[in-house]
């Protein structure tokens, strides 16, 4: 039969707990937060839109951009125009991202069209076709 080992912490006897000890609830006063600084003003100016970005991907997943495309951005009335002046191509949309997305689709469409007609392009479109291939390649 195993013998009981002495406890590490000795608990007081029950008669000690009952010996006149009471619990009293006391209100605690938490520190109050500092009053708001009403005289601090933050001025937020109109967000400065970029007028130029470097495009690294096309919205058409069939193509990969191998050289960043310098895209000009213009906001006109209720639309934004993203253009790639080097190839005279542009996209439009209600926002910068929409316009850039449209440009990406247009560039992909242009690539496919010029690729099909490569043998019968005029000198200007032939130059566009060569420029396009410097920046964009089809994904395998």
């Amino acid at each position, binding site marked *: 039969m195993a013998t009981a080992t002495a406890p590490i912490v000795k608990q007081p006897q029950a008669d000690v707990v009952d010996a006149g000890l009471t619990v009293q609830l006391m209100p605690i006063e938490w520190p109050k937060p500092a009053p708001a600084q009403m005289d601090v003003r933050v001025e937020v100016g109109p967000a400065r839109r970029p007028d130029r970005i470097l495009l690294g991907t096309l919205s058409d997943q069939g193509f990969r951009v191998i050289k960043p495309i310098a895209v000009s951005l213009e906001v006109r009335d209720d639309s934004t125009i993203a253009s790639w002046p080097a190839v005279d191509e542009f996209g*439009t949309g209600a926002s910068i991202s929409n316009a850039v997305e449209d440009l990406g689709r247009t560039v992909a*469409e242009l690539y496919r069209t010029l690729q099909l*007609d490569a043998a*019968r392009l*005029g*000198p*200007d479109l032939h130059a566009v076709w060569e420029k396009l291939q410097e920046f964009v390649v089809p994904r395998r």
Partner: protein
Amino acid sequence: MKTHEFEIIVRKLGLKTRNSGDRLAWFEYNGQTVVRTKRSHGNKEQPGDKIRQQLKVNEQQLSGLISCSIELPEYIEILKSRGIIAQQSESSSQQKPDETTTPKPSAGKP
């Protein structure tokens, strides 16, 4: 540029068109595709200056294309003067589809 003005140019120059995400249009001369342009679908205002650059004309010439002052033969001359139409392609080809569709000169029109 209004959508209907774009369509005036399409008809006047006999541009070939294809509807994709946008309405694509291109001009062919002597079997070569020489310029291309596009407009978005719907009746939204089109960026005339971008379309003008794609058509290789200046502002006055674009106005002429929309109105009656510049017709297909004049447009071809503009493209030739800018080197957009190769001179060799003109002399090497016997068949010019444009000649059959060339509108009459616009003399007498307002």
